[in-house]
Protein backbone atom coordinates (compact mmCIF):
# COMPACT_ATOMS: atom_id res chain seq x y z
CA UNK A 1 0.00 0.00 0.00
CA UNK A 2 1.12 3.55 -0.56
CA UNK A 3 1.15 6.06 2.28
CA UNK A 4 -2.12 7.67 3.43
CA UNK A 5 -3.63 9.35 0.44
CA UNK A 6 -4.10 12.94 1.47
CA UNK A 7 -3.43 13.98 -2.10
CA UNK A 8 -5.92 11.72 -3.88
CA UNK A 9 -6.00 12.82 -7.49
CA UNK A 10 -9.77 13.05 -7.74
CA UNK A 11 -9.55 15.03 -10.95
CA UNK A 12 -8.06 12.14 -12.90
CA UNK A 13 -10.01 9.26 -11.32
CA UNK A 14 -13.70 9.59 -10.63
CA UNK A 15 -14.94 6.40 -9.01
CA UNK A 16 -18.61 7.37 -9.49
CA UNK A 17 -18.06 7.65 -13.22
CA UNK A 18 -16.26 4.31 -13.21
CA UNK A 19 -19.10 2.65 -11.28
CA UNK A 20 -21.65 3.94 -13.77
CA UNK A 21 -19.85 2.00 -16.50
CA UNK A 22 -20.38 -1.34 -14.74
CA UNK A 23 -24.09 -2.22 -15.16
CA UNK A 24 -24.03 -5.12 -12.69
CA UNK A 25 -23.13 -2.78 -9.84
CA UNK A 26 -26.75 -1.52 -9.90
CA UNK A 27 -28.01 -5.05 -9.28
CA UNK A 28 -29.93 -5.82 -6.08
CA UNK A 29 -29.41 -9.16 -4.34
CA UNK A 30 -31.75 -10.45 -1.61
CA UNK A 31 -33.39 -7.01 -1.80
CA UNK A 32 -30.16 -5.17 -1.00
CA UNK A 33 -27.81 -3.19 -3.26
CA UNK A 34 -24.96 -5.40 -4.43
CA UNK A 35 -21.62 -4.72 -2.77
CA UNK A 36 -19.14 -6.66 -4.88
CA UNK A 37 -15.95 -7.47 -2.98
CA UNK A 38 -14.87 -10.55 -4.94
CA UNK A 39 -12.86 -9.07 -7.80
CA UNK A 40 -9.82 -11.26 -7.13
CA UNK A 41 -12.11 -14.17 -7.96
CA UNK A 42 -13.40 -12.50 -11.09
CA UNK A 43 -13.86 -8.83 -11.89
CA UNK A 44 -17.06 -7.27 -13.15
CA UNK A 45 -17.28 -6.05 -16.74
CA UNK A 46 -17.74 -2.48 -18.01
CA UNK A 47 -20.18 -1.64 -20.80
CA UNK A 48 -17.52 -1.30 -23.53
CA UNK A 49 -16.51 -4.93 -22.94
CA UNK A 50 -20.09 -6.21 -22.96
CA UNK A 51 -20.84 -4.15 -26.08
CA UNK A 52 -17.71 -5.32 -27.88
CA UNK A 53 -18.78 -8.95 -27.49
CA UNK A 54 -22.32 -8.14 -28.56
CA UNK A 55 -21.04 -6.19 -31.58
CA UNK A 56 -18.75 -9.02 -32.55
CA UNK A 57 -21.67 -11.43 -32.83
CA UNK A 58 -23.89 -8.89 -34.58
CA UNK A 59 -21.38 -7.62 -37.12
CA UNK A 60 -18.25 -9.75 -37.33
CA UNK A 61 -18.88 -13.37 -36.37
CA UNK A 62 -16.72 -15.66 -38.53
CA UNK A 63 -13.71 -17.88 -38.12
CA UNK A 64 -10.32 -16.18 -38.16
CA UNK A 65 -7.28 -16.60 -40.43
CA UNK A 66 -9.22 -18.85 -42.80
CA UNK A 67 -11.74 -17.31 -45.12
CA UNK A 68 -11.72 -14.67 -47.83
CA UNK A 69 -15.03 -13.08 -46.91
CA UNK A 70 -15.42 -9.76 -45.16
CA UNK A 71 -16.72 -11.16 -41.86
CA UNK A 72 -13.60 -13.27 -41.49
CA UNK A 73 -11.52 -10.18 -42.17
CA UNK A 74 -13.38 -8.31 -39.44
CA UNK A 75 -13.04 -11.17 -36.97
CA UNK A 76 -9.33 -11.57 -37.75
CA UNK A 77 -8.78 -7.83 -37.34
CA UNK A 78 -10.48 -7.88 -33.93
CA UNK A 79 -8.50 -10.93 -32.84
CA UNK A 80 -5.11 -9.72 -34.04
CA UNK A 81 -5.95 -6.22 -32.86
CA UNK A 82 -6.40 -7.58 -29.34
CA UNK A 83 -2.97 -9.22 -29.58
CA UNK A 84 -1.41 -5.85 -30.45
CA UNK A 85 -3.28 -4.20 -27.56
CA UNK A 86 -2.15 -6.94 -25.17
CA UNK A 87 1.45 -6.42 -26.29
CA UNK A 88 1.15 -2.73 -25.47
CA UNK A 89 -0.54 -3.52 -22.14
CA UNK A 90 2.43 -5.58 -20.89
CA UNK A 91 4.98 -3.55 -22.91
CA UNK A 92 6.07 -6.58 -24.92
CA UNK A 93 8.65 -5.90 -27.62
CA UNK A 94 6.56 -7.50 -30.37
CA UNK A 95 2.96 -8.74 -30.74
CA UNK A 96 4.41 -12.06 -31.89
CA UNK A 97 5.59 -12.60 -28.31
CA UNK A 98 1.93 -12.67 -27.20
CA UNK A 99 0.18 -16.06 -27.17
CA UNK A 100 -3.57 -15.80 -26.67
CA UNK A 101 -4.61 -18.52 -24.22
CA UNK A 102 -7.66 -19.60 -22.24
CA UNK A 103 -6.29 -17.88 -19.15
CA UNK A 104 -3.40 -17.84 -16.71
CA UNK A 105 -3.76 -21.54 -15.91
CA UNK A 106 -3.56 -22.38 -19.61
CA UNK A 107 -0.48 -20.18 -20.02
CA UNK A 108 1.34 -21.81 -17.11
CA UNK A 109 0.48 -25.28 -18.40
CA UNK A 110 1.73 -24.28 -21.84
CA UNK A 111 5.11 -23.27 -20.43
CA UNK A 112 5.33 -26.38 -18.23
CA UNK A 113 4.42 -28.80 -21.01
CA UNK A 114 6.19 -27.13 -23.92
CA UNK A 115 9.27 -25.43 -22.51
CA UNK A 116 9.53 -27.53 -19.35
CA UNK A 117 8.92 -30.96 -20.75
CA UNK A 118 11.29 -30.46 -23.68
CA UNK A 119 14.20 -29.13 -21.63
CA UNK A 120 14.08 -30.47 -18.05
CA UNK A 121 15.81 -33.63 -16.88
CA UNK A 122 15.87 -35.64 -13.67
CA UNK A 123 17.52 -33.67 -10.88
CA UNK A 124 16.73 -30.25 -12.36
CA UNK A 125 14.92 -27.95 -9.96
CA UNK A 126 11.80 -25.80 -10.23
CA UNK A 127 11.40 -23.09 -7.61
CA UNK A 128 8.02 -21.69 -6.59
CA UNK A 129 6.80 -19.97 -3.39
CA UNK A 130 4.37 -20.91 -0.61
CA UNK A 131 2.13 -18.09 -1.78
CA UNK A 132 1.20 -19.66 -5.08
CA UNK A 133 -2.27 -20.34 -6.38
CA UNK A 134 -2.84 -24.04 -7.11
CA UNK A 135 -2.53 -23.18 -10.82
CA UNK A 136 1.10 -22.22 -10.24
CA UNK A 137 1.79 -25.38 -8.20
CA UNK A 138 0.06 -28.31 -9.87
CA UNK A 139 1.40 -27.83 -13.46
CA UNK A 140 4.93 -27.92 -12.00
CA UNK A 141 4.17 -31.01 -9.91
CA UNK A 142 2.93 -32.71 -13.08
CA UNK A 143 6.11 -31.66 -14.88
CA UNK A 144 8.21 -33.06 -12.01
CA UNK A 145 6.42 -36.39 -12.30
CA UNK A 146 7.04 -36.46 -16.04
CA UNK A 147 10.71 -35.45 -15.98
CA UNK A 148 12.09 -36.37 -12.55
CA UNK A 149 12.69 -32.70 -11.80
CA UNK A 150 12.37 -31.57 -8.18
CA UNK A 151 9.96 -28.91 -6.90
CA UNK A 152 11.39 -26.52 -4.29
CA UNK A 153 9.20 -24.13 -2.36
CA UNK A 154 10.37 -20.81 -0.91
CA UNK A 155 8.82 -20.18 2.52
CA UNK A 156 6.90 -17.05 3.53
CA UNK A 157 7.14 -15.06 6.74
CA UNK A 158 4.39 -14.29 9.26
CA UNK A 159 3.36 -11.19 7.28
CA UNK A 160 2.84 -13.32 4.20
CA UNK A 161 5.93 -12.14 2.33
CA UNK A 162 8.25 -14.42 0.38
CA UNK A 163 11.50 -14.96 2.32
CA UNK A 164 13.96 -13.52 -0.15
CA UNK A 165 17.02 -14.77 1.76
CA UNK A 166 15.65 -18.31 1.58
CA UNK A 167 14.94 -17.76 -2.11
CA UNK A 168 18.52 -16.65 -2.78
CA UNK A 169 19.83 -19.67 -0.87
CA UNK A 170 17.56 -22.05 -2.80
CA UNK A 171 18.82 -20.97 -6.21
CA UNK A 172 21.64 -23.03 -7.70
CA UNK A 173 22.93 -24.17 -11.10
CA UNK A 174 20.27 -26.92 -10.82
CA UNK A 175 17.49 -24.30 -10.88
CA UNK A 176 15.95 -24.35 -14.34
CA UNK A 177 12.58 -22.65 -13.81
CA UNK A 178 11.35 -20.14 -11.25
CA UNK A 179 7.59 -19.54 -11.19
CA UNK A 180 6.13 -16.93 -8.89
CA UNK A 181 3.04 -14.78 -8.51
CA UNK A 182 3.39 -11.06 -9.10
CA UNK A 183 0.58 -10.56 -6.57
CA UNK A 184 -0.76 -13.26 -4.21
CA UNK A 185 -4.44 -14.07 -4.75
CA UNK A 186 -5.02 -15.20 -1.17
CA UNK A 187 -3.19 -12.41 0.68
CA UNK A 188 -2.60 -9.58 -1.79
CA UNK A 189 1.18 -9.56 -1.23
CA UNK A 190 3.13 -7.88 -4.03
CA UNK A 191 6.27 -9.92 -4.62
CA UNK A 192 9.58 -8.26 -5.56
CA UNK A 193 9.45 -9.88 -8.99
CA UNK A 194 12.20 -7.76 -10.55
CA UNK A 195 14.61 -9.06 -7.92
CA UNK A 196 13.25 -12.60 -8.30
CA UNK A 197 14.01 -12.48 -12.02
CA UNK A 198 17.46 -10.96 -11.65
CA UNK A 199 18.60 -13.51 -9.07
CA UNK A 200 17.22 -16.45 -11.09
CA UNK A 201 18.91 -15.23 -14.26
CA UNK A 202 22.25 -15.19 -12.46
CA UNK A 203 21.93 -19.00 -12.39
CA UNK A 204 20.59 -19.28 -15.93
CA UNK A 205 17.05 -20.19 -14.86
CA UNK A 206 14.03 -18.94 -16.78
CA UNK A 207 11.31 -17.12 -14.86
CA UNK A 208 7.55 -17.25 -15.27
CA UNK A 209 5.52 -14.60 -13.48
CA UNK A 210 1.87 -15.38 -12.70
CA UNK A 211 0.32 -11.98 -13.26
CA UNK A 212 -3.35 -12.92 -12.84
CA UNK A 213 -3.81 -10.73 -9.74
CA UNK A 214 -1.41 -7.98 -10.79
CA UNK A 215 -3.00 -7.13 -14.13
CA UNK A 216 -6.09 -5.33 -12.76
CA UNK A 217 -4.05 -3.22 -10.34
CA UNK A 218 -0.45 -2.64 -11.45
CA UNK A 219 1.18 -1.44 -14.64
CA UNK A 220 3.05 -4.35 -16.21
CA UNK A 221 6.29 -4.00 -18.11
CA UNK A 222 7.76 -7.36 -19.12
CA UNK A 223 10.86 -5.71 -20.55
CA UNK A 224 11.62 -3.82 -17.35
CA UNK A 225 10.95 -6.97 -15.33
CA UNK A 226 13.11 -8.91 -17.81
CA UNK A 227 10.97 -12.01 -17.13
CA UNK A 228 10.91 -14.87 -19.62
CA UNK A 229 7.19 -15.58 -19.37
CA UNK A 230 4.29 -13.56 -17.98
CA UNK A 231 0.79 -15.07 -17.79
CA UNK A 232 -2.47 -13.26 -17.09
CA UNK A 233 -6.25 -13.70 -17.36
CA UNK A 234 -8.70 -11.41 -19.10
CA UNK A 235 -11.47 -12.02 -16.58
CA UNK A 236 -9.49 -10.64 -13.64
CA UNK A 237 -8.93 -7.37 -15.53
CA UNK A 238 -12.52 -6.52 -16.50
CA UNK A 239 -12.59 -8.71 -19.61
CA UNK A 240 -14.54 -11.90 -20.26
CA UNK A 241 -13.69 -15.37 -18.96
CA UNK A 242 -11.90 -17.96 -21.07
CA UNK A 243 -9.20 -15.65 -22.46
CA UNK A 244 -5.67 -14.98 -21.31
CA UNK A 245 -2.27 -13.84 -22.39
CA UNK A 246 1.05 -15.56 -22.22
CA UNK A 247 3.96 -13.30 -22.99
CA UNK A 248 7.08 -15.26 -23.90
CA UNK A 249 10.58 -14.05 -24.64
CA UNK A 250 10.68 -14.31 -28.45
CA UNK A 251 13.84 -16.45 -28.61
CA UNK A 252 12.31 -18.93 -26.14
CA UNK A 253 8.96 -19.14 -27.94
CA UNK A 254 10.83 -19.83 -31.20
CA UNK A 255 12.70 -22.74 -29.64
CA UNK A 256 9.67 -24.32 -27.93
CA UNK A 257 7.71 -27.22 -29.42
CA UNK A 258 3.94 -26.81 -29.95
CA UNK A 259 1.69 -27.32 -26.95
CA UNK A 260 -1.38 -28.78 -28.64
CA UNK A 261 -1.86 -29.98 -32.20
CA UNK A 262 -4.73 -29.00 -34.46
CA UNK A 263 -5.96 -26.47 -36.96
CA UNK A 264 -4.42 -23.01 -37.33
CA UNK A 265 -1.15 -24.07 -35.65
CA UNK A 266 0.21 -25.70 -38.82
CA UNK A 267 1.65 -24.55 -42.13
CA UNK A 268 1.16 -27.80 -44.01
CA UNK A 269 -0.04 -31.23 -43.09
CA UNK A 270 0.65 -34.49 -44.88
CA UNK A 271 0.69 -37.91 -43.32
CA UNK A 272 4.46 -37.99 -43.83
CA UNK A 273 5.39 -34.58 -42.43
CA UNK A 274 3.63 -31.65 -40.82
CA UNK A 275 5.27 -28.25 -40.58
CA UNK A 276 4.18 -25.94 -37.81
CA UNK A 277 3.03 -22.39 -38.13
CA UNK A 278 5.18 -19.49 -36.92
CA UNK A 279 5.17 -18.09 -33.39
CA UNK A 280 2.73 -17.37 -31.77
CA UNK A 281 0.27 -19.30 -33.97
CA UNK A 282 1.95 -22.63 -33.37
CA UNK A 283 0.70 -22.35 -29.77
CA UNK A 284 -2.88 -21.51 -30.75
CA UNK A 285 -4.42 -24.74 -32.02
CA UNK A 286 -8.11 -24.82 -32.87
CA UNK A 287 -10.72 -22.10 -33.22
CA UNK A 288 -10.16 -19.78 -30.27
CA UNK A 289 -12.58 -17.81 -28.10
CA UNK A 290 -12.91 -15.03 -30.70
CA UNK A 291 -15.79 -13.15 -29.06
CA UNK A 292 -13.92 -13.34 -25.75
CA UNK A 293 -10.77 -11.98 -27.35
CA UNK A 294 -12.83 -9.13 -28.83
CA UNK A 295 -14.11 -8.37 -25.32
CA UNK A 296 -10.59 -8.66 -23.91
CA UNK A 297 -9.35 -6.12 -26.47
CA UNK A 298 -12.04 -3.73 -25.24
CA UNK A 299 -10.99 -4.39 -21.63
CA UNK A 300 -7.39 -3.48 -22.45
CA UNK A 301 -8.60 -0.29 -24.16
CA UNK A 302 -10.72 0.46 -21.11
CA UNK A 303 -7.84 0.05 -18.66
CA UNK A 304 -5.35 1.91 -20.80
CA UNK A 305 -7.68 4.88 -21.10
CA UNK A 306 -7.78 5.18 -17.30
CA UNK A 307 -5.18 7.10 -15.33
CA UNK A 308 -3.89 3.94 -13.70
CA UNK A 309 -1.64 5.70 -11.20
CA UNK A 310 -4.66 7.63 -9.93
CA UNK A 311 -6.76 4.45 -9.94
CA UNK A 312 -4.16 2.70 -7.82
CA UNK A 313 -4.07 5.60 -5.36
CA UNK A 314 -7.84 5.23 -5.05
CA UNK A 315 -7.66 1.43 -4.62
CA UNK A 316 -4.90 1.74 -2.02
CA UNK A 317 -7.00 4.25 -0.12
CA UNK A 318 -9.96 1.86 -0.03
CA UNK A 319 -7.72 -1.07 0.99
CA UNK A 320 -6.14 0.97 3.76
CA UNK A 321 -9.57 2.08 4.97
CA UNK A 322 -10.85 -1.51 4.82
CA UNK A 323 -7.85 -2.79 6.76
CA UNK A 324 -8.35 -0.19 9.49
CA UNK A 325 -12.13 -0.68 9.72
CA UNK A 326 -12.10 -4.48 9.69
CA UNK A 327 -9.14 -4.66 12.11
CA UNK A 328 -11.12 -2.64 14.63
CA UNK A 329 -13.83 -5.33 14.85
CA UNK A 330 -13.40 -7.45 17.97
CA UNK A 331 -12.15 -10.97 17.24
CA UNK A 332 -10.77 -10.20 13.77
CA UNK A 333 -7.36 -11.44 12.73
CA UNK A 334 -5.99 -10.12 9.43
CA UNK A 335 -4.25 -12.84 7.41
CA UNK A 336 -1.48 -11.34 5.29
CA UNK A 337 0.07 -8.08 6.39
CA UNK A 338 2.75 -7.65 3.76
CA UNK A 339 4.32 -4.23 3.50
CA UNK A 340 3.57 -4.21 -0.22
CA UNK A 341 -0.03 -5.22 -0.85
CA UNK A 342 -2.77 -4.62 -3.33
CA UNK A 343 -6.43 -5.43 -3.71
CA UNK A 344 -6.97 -8.11 -1.05
CA UNK A 345 -8.05 -8.14 2.59
CA UNK A 346 -8.10 -11.68 4.00
CA UNK A 347 -9.20 -12.22 7.58
CA UNK A 348 -10.74 -14.61 10.06
CA UNK A 349 -13.37 -13.90 12.69
CA UNK A 350 -12.95 -15.58 16.07
CA UNK A 351 -15.60 -18.25 16.67
CA UNK A 352 -17.14 -17.95 13.20
CA UNK A 353 -16.28 -20.20 10.31
CA UNK A 354 -15.68 -18.15 7.13
CA UNK A 355 -18.28 -20.18 5.25
CA UNK A 356 -21.01 -19.18 7.71
CA UNK A 357 -19.88 -15.57 7.51
CA UNK A 358 -20.05 -15.75 3.70
CA UNK A 359 -23.68 -16.89 3.76
CA UNK A 360 -24.74 -14.12 6.14
CA UNK A 361 -22.78 -11.45 4.24
CA UNK A 362 -24.45 -12.60 1.01
CA UNK A 363 -27.87 -12.00 2.56
CA UNK A 364 -26.72 -8.44 3.25
CA UNK A 365 -25.83 -8.01 -0.42
CA UNK A 366 -22.10 -8.34 0.21
CA UNK A 367 -20.24 -10.72 -2.13
CA UNK A 368 -16.95 -11.99 -0.72
CA UNK A 369 -15.10 -15.25 -1.19
CA UNK A 370 -14.70 -17.61 1.70
CA UNK A 371 -12.55 -20.71 1.77
CA UNK A 372 -8.98 -21.51 0.92
CA UNK A 373 -8.83 -19.48 -2.32
CA UNK A 374 -7.12 -22.25 -4.31
CA UNK A 375 -4.12 -21.71 -2.05
CA UNK A 376 -4.26 -24.53 0.49
CA UNK A 377 -0.53 -24.27 1.39
CA UNK A 378 -1.02 -20.61 2.36
CA UNK A 379 -3.85 -21.60 4.71
CA UNK A 380 -1.72 -24.40 6.19
CA UNK A 381 1.07 -21.91 6.72
CA UNK A 382 -1.15 -19.72 8.90
CA UNK A 383 -2.66 -22.74 10.69
CA UNK A 384 -6.17 -22.06 9.39
CA UNK A 385 -8.49 -23.85 7.00
CA UNK A 386 -10.13 -20.85 5.38
CA UNK A 387 -10.43 -17.07 5.39
CA UNK A 388 -12.98 -14.44 4.49
CA UNK A 389 -11.50 -12.55 1.56
CA UNK A 390 -12.72 -9.11 0.55
CA UNK A 391 -11.03 -8.20 -2.71
CA UNK A 392 -11.21 -4.89 -4.49
CA UNK A 393 -11.60 -3.57 -7.99
CA UNK A 394 -11.27 -0.03 -9.29
CA UNK A 395 -15.01 0.44 -8.72
CA UNK A 396 -15.04 -0.16 -4.96
CA UNK A 397 -15.48 2.65 -2.47
CA UNK A 398 -15.16 3.37 1.24
CA UNK A 399 -18.97 3.10 1.35
CA UNK A 400 -18.70 -0.54 0.20
CA UNK A 401 -16.41 -1.17 3.16
CA UNK A 402 -18.91 0.47 5.54
CA UNK A 403 -21.59 -1.96 4.32
CA UNK A 404 -19.16 -4.87 4.81
CA UNK A 405 -18.41 -3.77 8.37
CA UNK A 406 -22.12 -3.42 9.25
CA UNK A 407 -22.77 -6.87 7.72
CA UNK A 408 -19.93 -8.33 9.80
CA UNK A 409 -21.71 -6.97 12.88
CA UNK A 410 -24.73 -9.07 11.86
CA UNK A 411 -22.48 -12.10 11.50
CA UNK A 412 -21.21 -11.53 15.01
CA UNK A 413 -24.75 -11.06 16.28
CA UNK A 414 -25.86 -14.46 14.90
CA UNK A 415 -22.90 -16.19 16.51
CA UNK A 416 -22.83 -14.14 19.72
Amino acid sequence: MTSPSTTVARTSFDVRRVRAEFPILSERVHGKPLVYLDSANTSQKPLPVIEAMDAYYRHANANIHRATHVLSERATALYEGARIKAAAFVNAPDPRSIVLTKGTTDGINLVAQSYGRSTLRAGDEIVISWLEHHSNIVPWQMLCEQTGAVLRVVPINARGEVEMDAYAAMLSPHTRIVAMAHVSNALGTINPVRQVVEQAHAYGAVVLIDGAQAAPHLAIDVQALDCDFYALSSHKMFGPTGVGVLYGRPSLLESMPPYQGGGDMIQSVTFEKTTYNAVPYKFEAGTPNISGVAGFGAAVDYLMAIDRDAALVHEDDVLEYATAQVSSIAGVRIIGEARQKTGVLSFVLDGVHPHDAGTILDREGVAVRTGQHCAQPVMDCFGITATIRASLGIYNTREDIDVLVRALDKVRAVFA
Partner: protein
Amino acid sequence: MSELTDLYQEVILDHNRRPRNFRTIASPSHHAEGYNPLCGDRLKLYVQVNGDTITDVAFEGSGCAISKASASLMTDALKGKTVSEANSLFERFHRVVTTPPDQPVEDLGKLSVLAGVREFPVRVKCASLAWHTLKAALDREQTTSTE
Protein backbone atom coordinates in the same frame (compact mmCIF):
# COMPACT_ATOMS: atom_id res chain seq x y z
CA MET B 1 -33.67 -12.43 7.34
CA SER B 2 -36.19 -15.20 8.07
CA GLU B 3 -34.42 -17.70 5.81
CA LEU B 4 -31.25 -16.89 7.69
CA THR B 5 -32.90 -17.51 11.06
CA ASP B 6 -34.25 -20.77 9.63
CA LEU B 7 -30.70 -21.75 8.75
CA TYR B 8 -29.03 -20.63 11.94
CA GLN B 9 -31.62 -21.90 14.40
CA GLU B 10 -30.73 -22.08 18.07
CA VAL B 11 -30.35 -25.87 17.87
CA ILE B 12 -27.73 -25.53 15.15
CA LEU B 13 -25.86 -22.76 16.94
CA ASP B 14 -25.91 -24.85 20.11
CA HIS B 15 -24.55 -27.96 18.40
CA ASN B 16 -21.90 -25.76 16.73
CA ARG B 17 -20.81 -24.34 20.09
CA ARG B 18 -21.02 -27.63 21.98
CA PRO B 19 -20.81 -30.45 19.47
CA ARG B 20 -22.01 -33.79 20.91
CA ASN B 21 -19.83 -36.88 20.64
CA PHE B 22 -16.88 -34.70 19.63
CA ARG B 23 -14.13 -37.18 20.46
CA THR B 24 -12.36 -40.25 19.12
CA ILE B 25 -13.22 -43.92 19.55
CA ALA B 26 -10.05 -45.92 20.20
CA SER B 27 -10.50 -48.83 17.79
CA PRO B 28 -13.81 -48.36 16.02
CA SER B 29 -15.24 -51.06 13.80
CA HIS B 30 -15.78 -48.46 11.07
CA HIS B 31 -14.23 -45.06 10.37
CA ALA B 32 -13.82 -42.65 7.49
CA GLU B 33 -12.56 -39.16 6.75
CA GLY B 34 -14.74 -36.61 4.98
CA TYR B 35 -13.48 -33.56 3.16
CA ASN B 36 -15.24 -30.63 1.51
CA PRO B 37 -12.63 -28.96 -0.70
CA LEU B 38 -14.94 -26.00 -1.31
CA CYS B 39 -14.57 -24.70 2.23
CA GLY B 40 -11.79 -26.87 3.61
CA ASP B 41 -14.09 -28.67 6.05
CA ARG B 42 -12.58 -31.91 7.27
CA LEU B 43 -14.03 -34.47 9.63
CA LYS B 44 -13.10 -37.87 10.96
CA LEU B 45 -15.98 -40.14 11.82
CA TYR B 46 -15.76 -43.19 14.09
CA VAL B 47 -18.52 -45.78 14.25
CA GLN B 48 -18.71 -48.76 16.60
CA VAL B 49 -21.01 -51.48 15.32
CA ASN B 50 -21.73 -54.46 17.57
CA GLY B 51 -23.61 -57.23 15.84
CA ASP B 52 -25.87 -55.18 13.65
CA THR B 53 -26.33 -52.26 16.02
CA ILE B 54 -24.48 -48.92 16.14
CA THR B 55 -23.49 -48.67 19.77
CA ASP B 56 -21.28 -45.58 19.57
CA VAL B 57 -20.52 -42.80 17.07
CA ALA B 58 -18.09 -39.92 17.42
CA PHE B 59 -16.43 -37.31 15.24
CA GLU B 60 -13.56 -34.86 15.17
CA GLY B 61 -12.51 -32.13 12.79
CA SER B 62 -13.01 -28.54 11.79
CA GLY B 63 -15.81 -27.07 9.79
CA CYS B 64 -18.51 -24.48 9.46
CA ALA B 65 -21.45 -24.32 11.86
CA ILE B 66 -23.69 -26.23 9.47
CA SER B 67 -21.31 -29.14 8.93
CA LYS B 68 -20.38 -29.34 12.61
CA ALA B 69 -23.98 -29.18 13.82
CA SER B 70 -25.04 -31.71 11.22
CA ALA B 71 -22.32 -34.13 12.33
CA SER B 72 -23.23 -33.59 15.97
CA LEU B 73 -26.95 -34.16 15.38
CA MET B 74 -26.21 -37.19 13.24
CA THR B 75 -24.10 -38.87 15.91
CA ASP B 76 -26.93 -38.40 18.42
CA ALA B 77 -29.48 -39.78 15.98
CA LEU B 78 -27.51 -42.89 15.05
CA LYS B 79 -26.87 -44.43 18.45
CA GLY B 80 -28.92 -47.59 18.89
CA LYS B 81 -29.88 -47.77 15.21
CA THR B 82 -29.12 -50.82 13.10
CA VAL B 83 -26.84 -50.43 10.07
CA SER B 84 -29.77 -50.76 7.70
CA GLU B 85 -31.75 -48.15 9.70
CA ALA B 86 -28.71 -45.85 9.44
CA ASN B 87 -28.51 -46.38 5.70
CA SER B 88 -32.21 -45.63 5.38
CA LEU B 89 -31.82 -42.49 7.51
CA PHE B 90 -29.00 -41.37 5.20
CA GLU B 91 -31.36 -41.65 2.22
CA ARG B 92 -34.19 -39.84 4.02
CA PHE B 93 -31.91 -37.05 5.25
CA HIS B 94 -30.43 -36.64 1.80
CA ARG B 95 -33.93 -36.35 0.34
CA VAL B 96 -34.91 -33.70 2.92
CA VAL B 97 -31.92 -31.42 2.24
CA THR B 98 -32.12 -31.75 -1.55
CA THR B 99 -35.87 -31.25 -2.00
CA PRO B 100 -36.72 -27.79 -3.41
CA PRO B 101 -37.65 -25.39 -0.59
CA ASP B 102 -41.24 -24.91 -1.77
CA GLN B 103 -42.05 -28.64 -1.47
CA PRO B 104 -43.01 -30.53 1.68
CA VAL B 105 -40.50 -32.88 3.28
CA GLU B 106 -40.60 -35.71 5.78
CA ASP B 107 -40.28 -34.75 9.45
CA LEU B 108 -37.04 -36.21 10.75
CA GLY B 109 -37.38 -34.86 14.28
CA LYS B 110 -34.32 -32.95 15.45
CA LEU B 111 -32.56 -33.55 12.14
CA SER B 112 -35.23 -31.44 10.45
CA VAL B 113 -33.55 -28.24 11.68
CA LEU B 114 -31.15 -28.76 8.79
CA ALA B 115 -33.96 -28.50 6.23
CA GLY B 116 -33.21 -24.75 6.26
CA VAL B 117 -30.20 -25.34 4.00
CA ARG B 118 -32.58 -25.87 1.10
CA GLU B 119 -32.78 -22.09 0.78
CA PHE B 120 -28.97 -21.98 0.50
CA PRO B 121 -27.98 -24.41 -2.28
CA VAL B 122 -24.23 -23.95 -1.78
CA ARG B 123 -24.60 -25.04 1.84
CA VAL B 124 -26.26 -28.39 1.15
CA LYS B 125 -22.82 -29.96 0.90
CA CYS B 126 -21.99 -28.70 4.39
CA ALA B 127 -25.07 -30.40 5.84
CA SER B 128 -24.39 -33.60 3.91
CA LEU B 129 -20.68 -34.02 4.63
CA ALA B 130 -21.11 -36.02 7.84
CA TRP B 131 -23.72 -38.25 6.25
CA HIS B 132 -21.59 -38.98 3.18
CA THR B 133 -18.74 -39.78 5.54
CA LEU B 134 -21.02 -42.14 7.46
CA LYS B 135 -21.94 -43.91 4.23
CA ALA B 136 -18.24 -44.23 3.38
CA ALA B 137 -17.46 -45.58 6.86
CA LEU B 138 -20.21 -48.16 6.72
CA ASP B 139 -19.20 -49.10 3.17
CA ARG B 140 -15.61 -49.23 4.47
CA GLU B 141 -14.17 -46.62 2.12
CA GLN B 142 -11.39 -44.69 3.78
CA THR B 143 -12.01 -41.11 2.60
CA THR B 144 -14.89 -39.38 1.01
CA SER B 145 -15.45 -36.00 -0.52
CA THR B 146 -18.54 -33.96 -1.24
CA GLU B 147 -17.11 -32.95 -4.62
